[in-house]
């Protein structure tokens, strides 16, 4: 069943009188349970695509259905609600709130989802357990390593149990060893917890953890193929 259904998605920016067509009408679908990497050089439009997939932006024209909801017709409030319930973000820069403990950071999406405080704490702790950081729940982000911070961010992405996890260059700020750990965590979420994961990256090594790679070039999809797994990757 299709979780993401993009049809002729086009995005045009107007900057200082110059129109830039970042996406020239892309169409693709992603089913529930898939692990897809979106690749492309900078300026290819993959960031724009990520923003639209993440409901941070809406297409200029074309149609984007997420879990059956037409995102293009939603207000800012509506988009916020979709992001809250349907999407878990994992960013390159972790994007944790520095003043809050790991547990509180994980609780954040539930705060805007109206979850009662006791249930919030329980769910957040469970999510931290999934990423193996329950002992660090009271640590602030600056007391954690980069890999640990990214795992807290993954726990935050998981906590509302959204159908889609959107990871934007999740290993960009991490060393190779930690990158592998974080990718293995995403793989296990996909395989064991049946999460749909869309990964945006420009590193082939990282993309190879996924099962399908969509390549974007100049605002269009240049290739869309399954990853052939062979041993020895890592």
């Amino acid at each position, binding site marked *: 069943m299709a979780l993401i259904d993009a049809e002729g998605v086009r995005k045009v920016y107007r900057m200082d009188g110059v129109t830039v067509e970042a996406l020239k009408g892309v169409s693709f679908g992603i089913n529930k349970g898939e692990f897809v990497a979106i690749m492309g050089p900078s300026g290819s439009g993959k960031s724009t695509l990520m*923003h639209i997939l*993440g409901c*941070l*932006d809406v297409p200029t024209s074309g149609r984007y259905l997420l879990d059956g909801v037409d995102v293009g017709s939603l207000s*800012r*409030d509506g988009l*916020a*609600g979709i*992001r*809250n*319930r349907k999407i878990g*973000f994992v*960013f390159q820069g972790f*994007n*944790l*709130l520095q*003043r809050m403990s790991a547990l509180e950071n994980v609780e*954040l*999406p539930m*705060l*805007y*989802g*109206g979850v009662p*405080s006791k249930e919030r704490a329980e769910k957040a702790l469970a999510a931290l357990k999934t990423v193996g950081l329950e002992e660090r729940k009271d640590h602030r982000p600056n007391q954690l390593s980069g890999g640990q911070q990214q795992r807290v961010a993954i726990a*935050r992405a998981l906590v*509302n149990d959204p159908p889609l996890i959107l990871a934007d260059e999740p290993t960009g700020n991490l060393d190779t060893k930690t990158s592998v750990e974080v990718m293995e965590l995403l793989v296990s979420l996909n395989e064991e917890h049946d999460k749909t994961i869309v990964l945006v990256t420009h590193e082939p090594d990282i993309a190879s953890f996924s099962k399908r790679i969509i390549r974007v070039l100049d605002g269009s999809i240049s290739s869309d193929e399954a990853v052939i797994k062979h041993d020895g990757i890592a």
Partner: protein
Amino acid sequence: MMGLLETAKISLRSLWANKMRSGLAILGVIIGVGAVIAMIAVGRGASLQIESHISSMGSNILIIVPGTTTSGGVRMGAGTQQSLSLDDAIAIEKECSAVSHVSPELSGVAQVVYGNRNWSTGVIGTTEGMMDVHNWSVSSGRFLTDQDVRSSTKVAVIGQTVAYELFGNANPVGEIIRIKKVPFQVVGVLAPKGQSAFGSDQDDVIFVPVTTAQKRLFGTPFPRMVRRISVKARDAESIYLAQEQITALLRQRHRIGPNQDDDFTVRNLTQAMEAAQQSTQAMTLLLGAIASVSLLVGGIGIMNIMLVSVTERTREIGIRMAVGARPRDIRLQFLIEAFLLSVIGGIAGIALGTLLSQMLVLLFNWSTSISPSSILLAFGFSGFVGVFFGFYPAYKASLMDPIEALRYE
């Protein structure tokens, strides 16, 4: 959707994280609210003092004094004519409907002796009406009665100061004192009144029946003469009617023709006091208004701090929006921050203002009065300032584009 309490907790925490900056923003409000409270306290203190003078003098009072005499072209000043009589007072009480109480007065200074002590004081011959007109009451014994006036009894009601000077702490009631060598029995002691509006000791006084004063104490050119008549009008509205009725009645009784001047003057003392009170109220308003300007400046300080804070926390706003905060959640968070800043400032400012007005009392002996309404006003105003000046930064924050906000370094 996020609860108010949750939002308030988050707001408090981010304020706490920037202690220095929050402190400075709060300081502006503290000074503003403190100034408003202290200034209003000073103004109210002044107006309360005047109010208490008015009430000790008695309210809605008219004072009738004889007119002037002219001797060889030289006019002698108010009260030099001897035209008022006890019968005028009785007639006013009977015939003027707007008048509730009348107190004729014949006064003079006399030496008073008790045992081996003596004291010089004002002795006023009057009637029972004095009590009601000038708000006197007795702390022990009784006041003069109609019976005393009718039979010219030699009884006296003495003020606290006189009681202390002659009797020390002993009970004067029932004792005999000599006023101008005439023996009087003390039948009552007046409740204390303190200083008058003009600084004289109102408790340094002796009341005797007016008829006794006329016959025994102060020689008068004609038997029933009084020096002045104090009159209490029924209420504040009827004071002018009372003035008219009294003037008409006395002109008739004194047989003054239509083209002749009055041989008496009716004075309205309350009016002067009320004018004074109005001017202090205007002053209170002015002081409050000036102080409010500093509260306004404090509000602008909050806006400034909040704008800086919104810019600095752009990334935080982006993160919150990405995980599902709606524009209104962001707006509420910053609005509550601004509100908390100003309300915390307001509470501290109330403490500062109270302290300041107490210091004015101690250092300069000013009378001040802090009313619950001024505290409520300052508190409410500071909350309003917070919301008003916090709205623009909060609105700005809520308009942010989550993509731009997440990119912000």
